[in-house]
C-alpha cells in the first residue's frame, strides 16, 4: 500500500473514531502544548530581557559603581546583605577620583534616588522616583526630551532647583497644559520644570515614566542620601572592549582609594547588564533543562496511552487484518498500516498541541507584560516528537497485527 494511501486510510479511521482518538492523543497534546507554550514564552522573555529590560534599566555598554548591586536577582543570604550594609558608601570624592582617573573615553553621571511626592496646583503625585543626577545622565540613558531641555553642567554645579519630569508624571500633574516654566514642589521644595522626557515604556509592567530628575547638587540631595554620598556612578563606554577597560580601571582606582590588599574582596559593586543577563541565562537554562523532563514525561505517558489504544484497535480489527491478509497484504503492509495510523494519530495530537500552545502563548502576551516569541525549532521538534512517539508506541501493536495468522484472524468475531 502506498504511503499516501496509508495516511488517508489512517485519517479516515481516526476521524470515524473521533472520541477515542481525542482521548488517546491527550498525553501528546499536553506535552506538545507545554513545549510550545514554555518555549514561546521563554524565548519572548529572552528577547525582552536582552532587548528591553537590561538595556532600559541598566543601559548599553554601561556599568554602575555602587555600594551593593541595585538589581538583585536570585536568593541573597541575609549574611551577604549584612555584609553589604557594612560596606562604605560611594562618596562624591570616590566619584570624582574615578572620573579623573579613567583614561578610556566615557560618559559619566552621578545618580541618587529616593521615592517621594511631587505636587502641582493641589495635585499630588505620590511614590515618584526622585532622582538627583549630573548632566550626562540623559545621554547615558539615551533619554530624549519631548519638550523643554535637560539641565546643564552649570546648573548641576550650582545646584539650581530645576527639574525634568517623566512623561506620565507630567501628564498626571498638568494634563494638557504646558508644564515648562511652571513651579512644582518636589518633596515640598519648589522646583521649576524645564523639560519633559519622552515616554520610556515599562519593564515587568512597571512604568518607567514616573520620575523627576534634578541636578545632583540641587536641594533634593538632602532627601536622597546622606551628605556627599551618591547611590551610583554611571559610566558609559563606546564599546564592549572599552567598557571592560573602564571597569578594570575603576576597580583599581577604588581598591587603592580604600587601601584593599590583593587578597581582600572588593567592598563595592560594579554592575553591568551582563550580570543581570547572566542571571537570566541561569533561569533560562534551568527552564530549558526542566522542560525536556516535563515534556518527556507527558510524551511517555502519551505514548503508553497510544500503545494501549492501538493494541485495542488491533484486537478490535483482527478480522479486518485477517481479511486484508487473505487478499494479499504482506506483513509489512499491515505493519505500515498500523504504524502510519499511530504516527498520524500522534502527529494530529501534536498539531493540536502546537495550535493550543501558540494560543496560550498569545493569551499570555495579550494579558500580561510577558511577550511571546515563536521559536520555529520548537514547532519542528514538536512535530518530530509527535510522529516519533506515534511510531514508537505503534511498533509493538503493529507487529502484533502483522504477525496474526490469517485463518484465525478471519474467524474472529
Amino acid at each position: 500500500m502506498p504511503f499516501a494511501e496509508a495516511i488517508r486510510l489512517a485519517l479516515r479511521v481516526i476521524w470515524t473514531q473521533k472520541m477515542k482518538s481525542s482521548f488517546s492523543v491527550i498525553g501528546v497534546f499536553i506535552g506538545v502544548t507545554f513545549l510550545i507554550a514554555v518555549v514561546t514564552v521563554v524565548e519572548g522573555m529572552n528577547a525582552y530581557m536582552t532587548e528591553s529590560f537590561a538595556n532600559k534599566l541598566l543601559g548599553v555598554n554601561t556599568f554602575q559603581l555602587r555600594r551593593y548591586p541595585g538589581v538583585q536577582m536570585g536568593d541573597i543570604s541575609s549574611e551577604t546583605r549584612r555584609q553589604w550594609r557594612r560596606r562604605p558608601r560611594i562618596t562624591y570624592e570616590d566619584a570624582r577620583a574615578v572620573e579623573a582617573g579613567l583614561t578610556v573615553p566615557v560618559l559619566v553621571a552621578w545618580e541618587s534616588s529616593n521615592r517621594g511626592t511631587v505636587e502641582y496646583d493641589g495635585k499630588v503625585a505620590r511614590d515618584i522616583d526622585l532622582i538627583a543626577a549630573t548632566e550626562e545622565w540623559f545621554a547615558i540613558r539615551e533619554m530624549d526630551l519631548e519638550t523643554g531641555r535637560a539641565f546643564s553642567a552649570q546648573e548641576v554645579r550650582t545646584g539650581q532647583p530645576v527639574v525634568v519630569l517623566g512623561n506620565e508624571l507630567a501628564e498626571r500633574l498638568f494634563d494638557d497644559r504646558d508644564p515648562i516654566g511652571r513651579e512644582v514642589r518636589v518633596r515640598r521644595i519648589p522646583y521649576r520644570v524645564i523639560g519633559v522626557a519622552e515616554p520610556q515604556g515599562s519593564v515587568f509592567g512597571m512604568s518607567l515614566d514616573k520620575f523627576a530628575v534634578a541636578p545632583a547638587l540641587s536641594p533634593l540631595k538632602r532627601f536622597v542620601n546622606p551628605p556627599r554620598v551618591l547611590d551610583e556612578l554611571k559610566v558609559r563606554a563606546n564599546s564592549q572592549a572599552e567598557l571592560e577597560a573602564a571597569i578594570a580601571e575603576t576597580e583599581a582606582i577604588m581598591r587603592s582609594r580604600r587601601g584593599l590588599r590583593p587578597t581582600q574582596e572588593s567592598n563595592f559593586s560594579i554592575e553591568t547588564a551582563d550580570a543581570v543577563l547572566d542571571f537570566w541565562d541561569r533561569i533560562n537554562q534551568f527552564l530549558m533543562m526542566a522542560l525536556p523532563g516535563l515534556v518527556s514525561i507527558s510524551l511517555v505517558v502519551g505514548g503508553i496511552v497510544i500503545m494501549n489504544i492501538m493494541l485495542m484497535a488491533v484486537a478490535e480489527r483482527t478480522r479486518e487484518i485477517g481479511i486484508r491478509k487473505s487478499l494479499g497484504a504482506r506483513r509489512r503492509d499491515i505493519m505500515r498500516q498500523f504504524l502510519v495510523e499511530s504516527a498520524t494519530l500522534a502527529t494530529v495530537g501534536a498539531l493540536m498541541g502546537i495550535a493550543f500552545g501558540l494560543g496560550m502563548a498569545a493569551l499570555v502576551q495579550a494579558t500580561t507584560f510577558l511577550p511571546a516569541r515563536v521559536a520555529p525549532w520548537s514547532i519542528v521538534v514538536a512535530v518530530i516528537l509527535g510522529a516519533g512517539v506515534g511510531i514508537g508506541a505503534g511498533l509493538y501493536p503493529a507487529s502484533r497485527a502483522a504477525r496474526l495468522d490469517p485463518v484465525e484472524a478471519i474467524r474472529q468475531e
Partner: protein
Amino acid sequence: MSGESLIRVSGLTREYRMGAETVHALRGVDMEIRRNEYLAIMGPSGSGKSTLMNLIGCLDSPTCGEYWLNGVEVSQMQDDELARVRNREIGFVFQTFNLLPRASALHNVELPLIYAGMSGRERRQHAARALERVGLADRMAHKPNELSGGQRQRVAIARALVNDPSILLADEPTGNLDSSTSAEIMAVFEELYRQGQTVVMVTHEADIASHARRVVTLLDGVVNSDTVREAA
C-alpha cells in the same frame, strides 16, 4: 473439457496441536486440479474441507506434504511469497462474505489491487469492471450493510475475481443465503466457469454440487471418492 494441471497436492497433512492432544484435520490428501475445472468438495462436517481450502488458498500451511501451484512449490514458501500468491493467484470467497464493513463495495473490491500496487485510477476502473461482471454496477458506493446477503456475496466474488486469479476458491459460498439467492449465486459461478474460470467450491448440498463437473468427497481427512460427471 479441462486443460493442463494447475494444482497438485500429495500427502497433504494438517494437524492441530491442542495441548496434549493432536487433531488430525487432514491425513494425507492427494489430488490434482486442472485448469478450467469446476470442482465441488463435499463431505460430512469436520471431514477437513475448510482445512483443505485454506491450504489451497495459501491462508494456512500444511504440517507436511507437498502443494504445487502453477508448477511452483507453495508448501516451501515464506510469508511474503505466500501473500503474493494469495494476491495474484487466488480468489477466495467465504461463507461469511468477509467484507470490510466501513468500506464501500467499490473499495472492498479495490483491496487486492491496492496490495498489488496498482495506481488509484486504474484500480477503480478494474474494480468497477469486476462489479459489473457480477451485476452490481449500480451498487458500487453502497456499504455492506446497505446490501442484501446475495449482493454482499456478489461483492465478495467481484473482489475474488478482480486480480484475475488462476483459481477461484469458495468455501460454502451459499451457506448463509436462502435457496433462491443461492441459485442466483450459483448461476454467477456457472457463468464464470463458462468464461474459463477454474472454480473449486465446498458445499454440503447435493443439488449445489450438481452444478459442478467433478465432485470430490472427503472423509476423516482423506479423499473418499472422486467422480467426474458428463456435462449436463
